[in-house]
């Protein structure tokens, strides 16, 4: 009797223990990280703004995996091992390149720089503080020859998340007098609510008429004290 009892318990525990393997997936373990680059330099973007898209073939239904970017153009995604296609979405400050996908064979943690073609790029940016004014000098380069500049702007903000949406000061540059490839300067007075801070952050952004997002310089931290 006792052996029978033990057998039943043993069988039951075996039965219970054996399920776990089948109906649960492990969480994705591999990391795909990198940044969007143009000519080797990371592009600054709006926080929570432009995205990349990952697709995977071999399943009956397709749905994209959105990859969001940080302020400095870096991104990372947790994924399963497999073959992915990475596309550069519209709704970004660079060309869509919809048919030009990047194949990613993910077998280990991978670092991938995604080359993009921004409509404009910002180089040689310098930010200086003189008295209560932030002066900046930068060069706007035309990358896509058909693109036109809609806005050139200087932003000041309280935090590293400074962009078109999150900012305290925004100064518009004169688009008609903008010369591509030559230094442009802008300056902004520091408003009263920022004067007392130890640091503020500054950034320039350029928007093409055909784009919905700005391309930015990297955020510059400026010590006030």
């Amino acid at each position, binding site marked *: 009797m006792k052996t029978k009892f033990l057998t039943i318990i043993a069988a039951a525990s075996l039965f219970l223990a054996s399920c776990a393997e089948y109906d649960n997936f492990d969480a994705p373990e591999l990391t795909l990280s990198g940044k969007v680059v143009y000519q080797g330099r990371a592009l600054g973007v709006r926080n929570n703004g432009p995205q990349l898209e990952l697709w995977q073939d071999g399943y009956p239904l397709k749905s994209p995996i959105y990859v969001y970017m940080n302020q400095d153009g870096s991104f990372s995604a947790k994924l399963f091992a497999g073959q992915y296609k990475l596309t550069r979405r519209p709704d970004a400050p660079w060309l869509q390149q919809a048919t030009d996908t990047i194949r990613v064979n993910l077998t280990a943690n991978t670092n991938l720089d995604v080359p993009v073609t921004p409509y404009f790029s910002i180089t040689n940016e310098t930010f200086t503080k003189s008295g209560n004014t932030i002066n900046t000098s930068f060069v706007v380069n035309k990358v896509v020859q058909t693109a036109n500049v809609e806005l050139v702007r200087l932003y000041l903000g309280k935090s590293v998340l400074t962009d078109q*949406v999150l900012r*305290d000061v925004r100064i518009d540059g004169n688009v008609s007098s903008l010369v591509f490839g030559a230094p442009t300067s802008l300056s902004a007075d520091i408003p009263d609510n920022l004067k007392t801070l130890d640091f503020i952050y500054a950034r320039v952004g350029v928007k093409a008429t055909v784009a*919905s997002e700005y391309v930015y310089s990297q955020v510059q931290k400026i010590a006030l004290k």
Partner: protein
Amino acid sequence: MKKIYIAFALLIGLTMNSCKHDDWFYRESKTTITDEQLWNDPNLITSLLANYYNRLPSLHGVFNTGGMTEIDDAMWSGTRDQNGRNDFQYGNDYGRYWDYGLIRDLNLSLENINALGGKLTPAQKNQFIAEMRFIRAFVYFEMVKRMGGVPLVTKQLIYDFSGDPTPLQVPRAKESEVYDFIYKELEEIKADLAPNNGVATRANRYTALALESRAMLYAASIAKYNSLMAAPISTAGGEVGIPAAMAADYYNKSLTASKEVIAGPYALYNTNPDKGANFYDMLNKKPVSEIIFAKDFALGTKVHRFTYDNIIKSMTEDNEASSAISPSLSLVESFNYLDGSRGTLKDKDANGNYIAYTNPADIFANKDGRLFGTVIYPGTTFKNNPVRIQAGVAVYNNGTYQLTTSAVLGGNYTDGQVWTGFDGPKDDAVDVSNTGFYIRKMVSDAPAASTRGTSAVNWWPWFRLGEIYLNAAEAAFELGRPEALGYVNTVRARAGFPANSLSALTNDIIRNERRVELAFEDHRYFDLKRWRIAHLVWDGTETDPNAVVMGLYSYRVVRPGHPDNGKYIYARVRPTRFRRARLFRMANYYSSIDQTVLNNNPKIVRNPFH
């Protein structure tokens, strides 16, 4: 032996029975209705139509409290779990609408009534067909204004099991083709709808014209203003974007339809000499001469809870949630003064000092009557009772006012008078206004309307004459016709402005007039979209009073011995619960198409920016 007899008899009995009464098996079912019965019985068809009318789509309409708090006219002050409405960006799929289930139902009905409805009189049949085609045009209009050109499916799509689904894969029509389809349908059916004239809850001749007026205006302004953008939003195949050359024709069609409605049997509601109360009555009472087409409600059968959701805090008749919609300061300020000056409230003088007012409502004096009819502000009344809106007291101390609020609503200050009113406003509070304003428009004043047991039965206006006047004004103004001015002045006169209050029009005047006249009636989101200024007005800037829902808090002055003692001052505030400025991106001009639709039909072109 005996057994054989019995078996034999049974066998005979069994065979005899079954010959004659075949029809016994073919009796009419008492539980199902056949297609022949349905399509030949006007009563059954009418009740089917009721189902279709009930499914007419809207985005922020039909008393959609939540939707109304997702634009710049208001913020959400209800339960905290829905505070996402104050802390969101319009997603890529915001406003997505792809309802081919309803289109299929309508196509099926149209085919069946034609094939099977032989016993209907031709007049009956034509009227039913016209009503269904009206509903179909309405649904296509809702789709085109959110998604751009959509597949035009006008008959049932039936799979033939051949293994080849391509005949079912209809590509997207051009955006202009969908608008042309709507126009053509409405022109064809408007005569057949005449038997419904005088009925506000079914499509009649003027309902078709009203839809035509609105749809053609949308098409025209997209044609004009999309082309004026620095980079027009369009696809190569024209699924999105209408050529600028088509604008004038669409404006003309809209104006013609509007004029026909204005010449019809409707009149602007104008019976109450108190213009503010008159504007409120116009939507609260029914039937009124102004409403062209409405979704009606009736006690005991079909009610809505807009009043329960939004009644002012101190006048709730039920427990739990209330006061969800808090109108914004920018909406209040868009109501101009009756002398024609801009509606910016004078809360501070040129030196930045508070201006004190004797009565709480004095700062709103001499404003457009529609302000009273739309918004409940400090010092006004609701259901003939004074509202108790007061944020706190302002104690004068060392040369400045210290603004203090009570911990509980309705508390008294140390001087024995009101500290914070029962109606708030209270920052970061639930079920009480966070902006200092409540909504009055469409909040019913009927007894027990704010209880869940009874609920409200005021109707939802799909089309009303006030809108048609403004449609006509906009179309005429764009066409450079002189009559535009008269249409706007007529609408303004009903709101309490003197006759011929404007002598010249601008785009801004017309646009502002639409905002104040049609607030909370599911127009603003689509208006800003078709004028292509949504991304400029809702630019996501945290310091922009248009993108941020601001509030205005009133304080009673405590400054003994000073003439301002006991008067009221007002402070502009940004409510804590409003977390993120409205951000409308280029991608929101046309919503993204669902990935399953793209998976199923490779002929569908994606929308720009998606």
